[in-house]
C-alpha cells in the first residue's frame, strides 16, 4: 500500500549494465583495487576486499546464456540454472535450502541472453559454509527427475502469471517481434509450449556442455582476506575438472527495415502498454559513453524529453523512458510507456514527435552539461556495495571491458560535444525504421493504430508463447 511518484529512477539505473560513468566533482571515483588470477583448470577468479559490512558476495558468470537455448526449447538455460540448488551429490533440494537459510544466506541463479549468473551472499563468519554450499550447487548438481518436472511446471505457470500483468511481458513480445528467430528473440524463461518440450536429458547435457571452469568467471567481494581466500579457492575449486566448451557465437542482427506493428490483445486492459524501437548497440560499442549521455537527455531520467512530454506536460502517463539493452552483439533499443485506451494514439504520436525533435534539433550545450552532471552524480551509489561491485567487475571481465570503464569515464563523458551528440543521434536513434509492440484492448484501440505501420500483426495475450507464435500454439 505504498504509492510512489516516479517509476524512472530504478529503471534508468538498472538499464545501463556495462555502460558506466564516474562521479561528479573534484573527487574522481575509482573501482576499489581487485586482483585477478586463473586456476590451473582455467577458472578465472576476481577478488575484491571491501571492508565495512561483514558480508561476502560470490558471483559466478557462466559464459553461456539463454541465447544458446535450442530453438523450440526456450527456457533451457534458465531451468538449468534454477535446478542447481535442487539437489546435489550430497544434499537434497530441501537440505540445500535448509542449510543456506540457516546461515541467513541468499542464493540465486538466472540465465540472461548472453550469460548465466549464480550469486550468493552470506556473513563473513559463515564463509566456509557459504562457499562450500555455493560450490556444491555449481559443481555437483544432480538434476533429480522430480525436481526437474516441478520446476518446468512452475516455470510454465510463471509465464501465465506474468501475462496477467502487461508491464511484465511487454519486453518479451518486443524482443520476439524485433529479433524473430534470432537467439535474442527468445523468451529467456521459456513459454507455455517450449517448457513442455524440455526433458531432463537436455538439462544434463546443457550443464555438461557449458558449466566448465574455462567457461566461467568467479568473483568474490566483501570482508575477507584475499590471500587466504585465494588459498581456499585453490583447495576447493581446483578439483573442478577442466572441460572443453564449444564456442557459442551470437551473430549480429542489422536493424529492421521499414515499419511493422504487433498488437497483443488483452480485452480487459484499460491502459495500452507500448514499446517502439529497433536493434540498438553492443556493450562494447565505441560510442557507448556518448550514447548514454544522449539517452539520458532523451529518455533516461525524470526530466528527459520523453518524460517531460508524455508525463509532465500532457499527463498522458505515469512514466515514459527510452532504453538501450546493450548485449554482446547489438541488443534492443526501445521507447516505452503506457497510457489509457483513449489516449493511445496521441501518446504514441507525441513520443514520435519527441524523437523527431531530437533528430532535428540535436542537444544543446546546456542539456549536455546537465546530463553529464546527472550521470556523474548518480553513479557512486551504483558501486556502493560488494554485491554491486562484484557483479560489475565480473560482467566487465566477460565483455572484455577493463577498469577504465569506470576509472576513465569522467573524462570520456566530458568529451561529448553537441556535434558528437548529433552524430550519435543520427547513427543510433532510429527514426525511419521502427518496430512497434502494443499490449492493450484491441477493440478499443485497433483501427487508429494502423497508421503507424505497413505491416500489422495481432494475437491474443492468452495464446501460448510470445512471438513468433510457436508451432502448435493455436488454442
Amino acid at each position, binding site marked *: 500500500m505504498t504509492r510512489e511518484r516516479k517509476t524512472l529512477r530504478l529503471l534508468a539505473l538498472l538499464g545501463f549494465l556495462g555502460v558506466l560513468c564516474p562521479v561528479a566533482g573534484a573527487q574522481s571515483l575509482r573501482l576499489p583495487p581487485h586482483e585477478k588470477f586463473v586456476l590451473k583448470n582455467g577458472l578465472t577468479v576476481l577478488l575484491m576486499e571491501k571492508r565495512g559490512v561483514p558480508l561476502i558476495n560470490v558471483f559466478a558468470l557462466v559464459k553461456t546464456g539463454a541465447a544458446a537455448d535450442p530453438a523450440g526449447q526456450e527456457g533451457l538455460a534458465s531451468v538449468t540454472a534454477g535446478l542447481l540448488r535442487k539437489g546435489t551429490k550430497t544434499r537434497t533440494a530441501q537440505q540445500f535450502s535448509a542449510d543456506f537459510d540457516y546461515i541467513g544466506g541468499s542464493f540465486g541463479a538466472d540465465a540472461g541472453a548472453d550469460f548465466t549468473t549464480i550469486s550468493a551472499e552470506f556473513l563473513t563468519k559463515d564463509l566456509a559454509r557459504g562457499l562450500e554450499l555455493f560450490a556444491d550447487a555449481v559443481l555437483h548438481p544432480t538434476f533429480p527427475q522430480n525436481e526437474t518436472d516441478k520446476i518446468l511446471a512452475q516455470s510454465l505457470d510463471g509465464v501465465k502469471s506474468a501475462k496477467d500483468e502487461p*508491464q511484465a511481458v511487454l519486453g518479451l513480445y518486443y524482443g520476439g517481434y524485433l529479433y524473430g528467430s534470432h537467439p535474442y528473440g527468445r523468451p529467456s524463461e521459456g513459454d507455455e509450449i517450449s517448457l513442455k518440450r524440455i526433458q531432463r536429458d537436455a538439462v544434463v547435457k546443457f550443464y555438461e556442455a557449458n558449466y566448465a571452469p574455462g567457461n566461467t568467471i568467479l568473483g568474490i567481494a566483501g570482508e575477507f582476506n584475499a590471500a587466504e581466500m585465494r588459498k581456499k579457492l585453490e583447495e576447493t575449486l581446483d578439483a573442478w575438472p577442466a572441460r572443453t566448451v564449444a564456442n557459442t557465437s551470437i551473430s549480429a542482427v542489422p536493424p529492421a527495415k521499414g515499419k511493422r506493428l504487433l498488437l497483443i490483445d488483452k480485452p480487459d486492459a484499460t491502459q495500452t502498454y507500448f514499446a517502439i524501437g529497433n536493434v540498438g548497440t553492443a556493450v562494447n560499442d565505441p560510442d557507448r559513453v556518448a550514447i548514454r549521455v544522449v539517452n539520458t537527455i532523451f529518455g533516461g531520467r525524470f526530466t528527459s524529453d520523453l518524460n517531460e512530454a508524455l508525463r509532465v506536460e500532457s*499527463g498522458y502517463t505515469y512514466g515514459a523512458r527510452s532504453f538501450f539493452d546493450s548485449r554482446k552483439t547489438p541488443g534492443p533499443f526501445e521507447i516505452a510507456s503506457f497510457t489509457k485506451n483513449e489516449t493511445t494514439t496521441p501518446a504514441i504520436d507525441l513520443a514520435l514527435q519527441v524523437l523527431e525533435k531530437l533528430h532535428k534539433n540535436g542537444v544543446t550545450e546546456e542539456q549536455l552539461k546537465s546530463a553529464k552532471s546527472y550521470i556523474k552524480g548518480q553513479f557512486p551509489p551504483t558501486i556502493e556495495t560488494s554485491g554491486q561491485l562484484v557483479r560489475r567487475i565480473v560482467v566487465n571481465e566477460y565483455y572484455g571491458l577493463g577498469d577504465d570503464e569506470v576509472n576513465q569515464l569522467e573524462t570520456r563523458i566530458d568529451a561529448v560535444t553537441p556535434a558528437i551528440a548529433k552524430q550519435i543521434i543520427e547513427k543510433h536513434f532510429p527514426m525511419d525504421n521502427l518496430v512497434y509492440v502494443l499490449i492493450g484492448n484491441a477493440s478499443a484501440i485497433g483501427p487508429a493504430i494502423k497508421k503507424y505501420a505497413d505491416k500489422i500483426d495481432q494475437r491474443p495475450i492468452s495464446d501460448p508463447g510470445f512471438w513468433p507464435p510457436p508451432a502448435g500454439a493455436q488454442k
Partner: protein
Amino acid sequence: MKTVSYRSTALLLLCALGFVSLPVWAQSQQFPVSTRTLKNGMKVLVQPDHSIPNVALYIFYRIGSRNEHPGTTGLSHFFEHMMFNGAKKYGPGDLDKVMEANGGSNNAYTSQNVTVYQDWFPRSALPLIYDIEADRIRDLTFDPKKIASEREVVASERRLSVDNNNFGLLGEQLWASAFLAHTYQWPVVGWMSDIEHWTMDDLKHHFEMGYSPSNATMVVVGDISPEEIFQLCEKYIEPIPSHAPPPPVTTIEPEQLGERRLVVHKPAELPIVMIGYHVAQTNDPDFYALNILRSVLFQGESSRMYQRLVDKDQLALDVSSDVELAFDPTLAIITAQPRQGVDPQACEKAIYEELDKVKGAPISDQELEKAKNGRLVEFYREMRTISGRANTIGTYEVFMGDYNKLFNAAKNYSAVTKEDVQRVVKKYFGANNRTVATLLPENEEKAKQ
C-alpha cells in the same frame, strides 16, 4: 523487466523494520547518529558516512491516507505529487530540472501512515537541496494547469498498479473489506472517482493540516558532518513557522467477529488468494514475535509455507506475507498464487493447516535460530547503503518513536521464545479474525459452466 519501483521501495520499507536482529552492528561498527530538534519542532537525525561522495536526505511527514476522509481519498498521495510541481522560488518543473542538472535525483512515496520525500545527490549539491526543500515546505504554489495534468498522471498510476494489476486490485478489495470503521479501508492511491474530483481547496487544506515542520523528521546520511547539516537547517528550515499537526485519528476498528469473504471475477490466467488478519500496530511489543513467526512460515525455500504449498503439495506458484508499518492496528496479509488448475480453497486449507501446526506444537530450536540469523543478514543488507540507512533510521524514529530502538531491536529479537511465537499465532491468526479475498479467472469459470 518487472521493475515497477514503488514495489521495491515498499519492500525496502518492510525490510527496514521487519528484518533486524542482534546487536553485532551496533557493537562492531561506528554508527553515531547526531540529533537536533529545530525551534519549529522538526527533528533532524544525521549520520556521517564518507565511503562514497554522496548524500541521502529523507523527510518523513506523519501524514498519509489514514488522515483522509471519504470523497477525497488519495489526497495525500496526490499532494505528494504536487510537492514537485512548483513553489515560490522553484516554479513548475524547476525543482527536478535544477536538481538533476546538479547531479541529484529524487523520489517520494505515500503510505497509509506517512509521506516520505527522498533526495539522493553528490555532496556538492548540498546547499542547493536545502534551498529547494525549504522553498516547497514554506511556499508551495498550486497551478490549476498542473493540478489538471497531474490528476491524469495519478489516474495512470492507478491503472498501472491497481486496475491492470491483479495483486493490486485484490489487495485494495481486501483492505476495503477488512476495515469497517478505520481509515485504512481505502487505497493510498484513492478511488478513481475521488481522483477525478479533488479541488484546489482540498490541496490547500491538506498542506495546512499535514505539512507543519513539527510534523516532520529529517534524516541525512552520507558524506557530510552533523555540524554542516545543522547549520544548513538553521539557515533554511528553522525559520519556517510551525502550526498545528493533523487532528488525531480517533477511530478504532471494532473487533472482527467472524470470517469475511470476497471474490473478484476478472479475466486472468491464474487465481490469487489473499488472507488478511488484524494484527497490532508497529510499536506493539508483539512486533518482534510476529516477525519471527513470519520468518519461520515464509522466509526462504526451507520455510514451512514454501515447503508445503510450493514444493511438496505444489499448490501454489508462490506464497508470502506482508505487514504494513502502521501507527494503528493493521493487517498481516498472506498471499498465494494457486497453480493452474488448483482450487484456491486447497491453498487456503493448506495455509490454515500450517498455522494450526504452529498453534499445536512449538517451532523447533533450529527454526527459531534460523529465523534470527535470517534477520541479522537482512539487517546488514539494509544498513550497508546510505539510502538504506536513512530509511531505517527514519523508520525507527517515526514508527517506533525513537531511532535508538534500532540498537535494541537485536536484543528484542533474541528475546523472542518459541512460546512467544505460539502465543502470537494463537492471538492473531484465528478464523474469526480473517478476511479472505479470492480472484477467480473469468475465462476459467466460463469454461466450467
